[in-house]
C-alpha cells in the first residue's frame, strides 16, 4: 500500500465508510496532501464503495477541497465587500509582487498557492486572509511581506 492508500484507509477506519463520512475523509486527505488528486479520488471511491464520479462531484462543490495541485501553503485572500473596501487589492498586489504568481497559480517550488475566497468572518479587522488554517487580519502590504517571509524560511 502506498502512502495515499494507507492514509485513506486510516481515515475511513476513523470516520467510517458510509456516504456521510465522505466529507471528513476528503478533508483528511486535503489536510495532508493539500489537494485531491485523481488517484486519491479513485482510491477514496474504492475504499468507501462510492462511485468515483460522485466523489468528484462532491469534492468540486466545496471551495476548500482543491482538485488542482496546490502548494504547501495555500493563501486565501478575502475579496468580499468590506475587505475589498479596506485594501484587499493592495494586499493582493503585494503578494503577487513578492511570490511572482497570479491568483489560482502555485509557485514553481510548490511552496505557495494564491487564491481568492469569500467572506472569512473578520470584517471588523479587514483585510483578512488565511494561510492554510491560520487567520491573519488587518494585513497591510508591509505586514504580508513579513508574514510570507516567515513561511519562506520553513522547511518543505
Amino acid at each position, binding site marked *: 500500500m502506498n502512502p495515499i492508500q494507507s492514509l485513506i484507509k486510516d481515515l475511513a477506519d476513523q470516520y467510517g465508510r458510509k456516504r456521510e463520512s465522505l466529507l471528513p475523509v476528503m478533508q483528511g486527505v486535503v489536510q495532508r496532501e493539500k489537494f485531491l488528486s*485523481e488517484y486519491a*479520488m*479513485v482510491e477514496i*471511491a*474504492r475504499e468507501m464503495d462510492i*462511485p*468515483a*464520479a*460522485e*466523489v*468528484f*462531484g462532491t469534492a*468540486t*462543490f466545496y471551495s476548500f477541497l482543491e*482538485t488542482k495541485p496546490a502548494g504547501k501553503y495555500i493563501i486565501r485572500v478575502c475579496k468580499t465587500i468590506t475587505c475589498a473596501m479596506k485594501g484587499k487589492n493592495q494586499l493582493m498586489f503585494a503578494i503577487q509582487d513578492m511570490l511572482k504568481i497570479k491568483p489560482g497559480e502555485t509557485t514553481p517550488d510548490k511552496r505557495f498557492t494564491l487564491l481568492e475566497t469569500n467572506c472569512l468572518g473578520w470584517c471588523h479587522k479587514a483585510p483578512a486572509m488565511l494561510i492554510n488554517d491560520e487567520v491573519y487580519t488587518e494585513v497591510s502590504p508591509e505586514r504580508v511581506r513579513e508574514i510570507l517571509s516567515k513561511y519562506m524560511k520553513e522547511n518543505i
Partner: protein
Amino acid sequence: MDKKVNMTINGFPVEIKKGKTILEAAEDEGIKIPTLCYHKDLCVAGNCRVCVVEVVGQKRLSAACATPCEDGMEILTNSLKVRNSRKHIIELILAEHNSDCTKCYRNGNCELQELASEYKIMTQDFIELAPLKNYTIDMYSPSIIKDDSKCIRCQRCVRTCAELQGVNALTVAYKGDHMKISTFFEKAMNDVVCTNCGQCVNHCPTGALVEKTYIEEVWGAISDPTKHVVVQTAPAVRVGLGEEMGMKPGERVTGKMVTALRRLGFDSVLDTDFTADLTIVEEGTELLTRLKKALVEKDKSIKIPMITSCSPGWIKYIEHLYPDHLDNLSTCKSPQQMFGALAKTYYAKARNIEPEDIVSVSIMPCTAKKYEAHRPEMHDSGYRDVDYVLTTRELAIMVKQAGLDFDKLAPAKFDRLMGDSTGAGVIFGVTGGVMEAALRTAYELVTGREVPFENLNIKPVRGMEGVRKATIKIENPLEEWAFLDGVELKCAVAHGLVNAKKIMDAIKAGEADFHFVEIMACPGGCLGGGGQPIPTNPEIRQKRAEAIYAEDANLTIRKSHENPEVQKLYKDFLINPLGELSHQLLHTKYTKRERF
C-alpha cells in the same frame, strides 16, 4: 378508504387523494402544467422551476412537482404572476443554451423547443451567456455525444444514471455559474464507467445527450454499387419504430419495416431474431455443458450461475464493476455480433460475394451496440463483423429522408438464409425473453418434452418487476442428462443495471443459488433501450412488451431449435453447437476494466 384532500385548481373544486403532488392532481383533472426536470421514471428534483404555480396566500410560487396537496389549497396554474415567472425562467434557460435549433439532432423533438414555442418566446432580452462560456462537446464515444452547450442542467441524466442504472457515470460538478453535468474528472464518456446504455439519451429533454449517428455512412454504403449492404433488425425495433411514424406505442410494424428497408436500398434485409435463435441453441448447450461440468465432474473452474451476455451495456458494466466475475458470463456473443460474423463468412460464401464487399449494418434499439460493434475483438470473420449500427430513431430518419409514406407500405417478409425466426427469437426484445426462449429449448433438450407451461408462455419470468425468480423442476430427463433428474433449475431475471447490482452483490456474497441468470441493461429490456423512440415511460414500455408477446404468440414456430434456417446453418456450416467453427465465430472474451 384513501384519505382525500379538498382544494381548488383555477377556481374549480377538486377532491384529491392525499399524498399526490399538485402536478399529479392537475394531471388527473386534465390540466397540463409544463415541466422540464420532472420525469415519471425518476425521483422528484424540483430544480428547473418551470412548473411553478401560485398557491393563494403564499408569498412565493411553489414547484408543482414537489409540493404535496393540502386541504384548503387554492392553486392557480395560469395566473399572470405564474405566466410571467415561467416566461422569465424559459428565457433564462435559453440564455445559456445553444439555440441553433436547425443544427440540432433533436430539432422537432425537444422539450425546451416545445416550451419556448408554447410561450411564444420571440425575443431574447437577456444577455446571451452561451457564447461567453467555453462549452465542450464530447464526441469520443462511438455511442453517445455529450454537448454541454445544450444542457439545461435538469439533472435527469444524472438521476437516470444513478437511480435507474446504478452506474453513476454522470454527476453534477462545481457550483454557481460553473455548475455542470460531468463525468469523473471531466473525462470523455468513453474513458469512464459509462456502459453506453443510452438511458441518459432517452431521458434528456434536449439535444445535450444524443447518439452518434452513422446515417450518412450507411447512405454512402447503399449508394456504392460495389458494396453489398446487408441489414439485420433487432426484435425490439419492430415494436418501437411505429412510434417514430406517428403511431401509438405498441404497434407491430414488422412487415412495413422490411419493405421500408428494401426501399431504402439495402441489398438484403435479414433478421437479428435468426441469430437470437442461434444464440439460444449455443447458449442452451453451453449452459447444460457447464452444469454437467460443475455438478457431475465437480470442475471448480466452471462458474455457476451462468449469466447471459447479449446486452453490451451489461457487459461493460460487469467489466468495470465486477471484473472478478467475468467467468460467470456466457461466452456467447450477442445476436448482433453472431450475425455480423456469419454475414461475412456463411452468408458471403452462400451468396458467392467477396466478404470485403459486404457492408454489415444493424438496426438496434440500443446505443451500446454501437460500442459493441467497435470492440477490438469483434472481427472474427476476418473483417469488422458489424460495420455500422443504427438506432430505431436513425432508421426513422432515413425512412423520412427517403420520402416513404410508412403507413402506406405493404408488409413484406425477410429475405432467406438468415431471415427466419421463431417466437423465441422475437421475445429477446423484452425482459425475461432470453430466459424464456432458453428454457423452451433447454427443457426440451433435456427431457424431450415441451416446457410445462400453457402455450409455452412461461409466465413466472414475465413482468416488469426489477428482479424476478423462477424455478423449473427437471423430472424424467433423457438418459444423457440423467444427472439433472430432480434438480430444481433456479433462474433469475433482472432488468435495469441497478437491479443487476442486486444480483451481482448476491453472487459476490455467495448468497445466490441460481443456475442461470438473464440480465438486461435497460428498463423493460431492449424495448426500453437507449436507441428507442423518445419519450419513454412505464406505460409506453408496457405497451411495447405486449406487442412483443403478441408477435411471439402469432408465429407458428416458437422454439429456437426448430428454426429451419438455424438447423440448415448447423448442417451446412457450423456442424455442432460449441463446435470449432462456433467457438471461432460465435464466442468471445471479455476485458477487465477500471471501476471509474
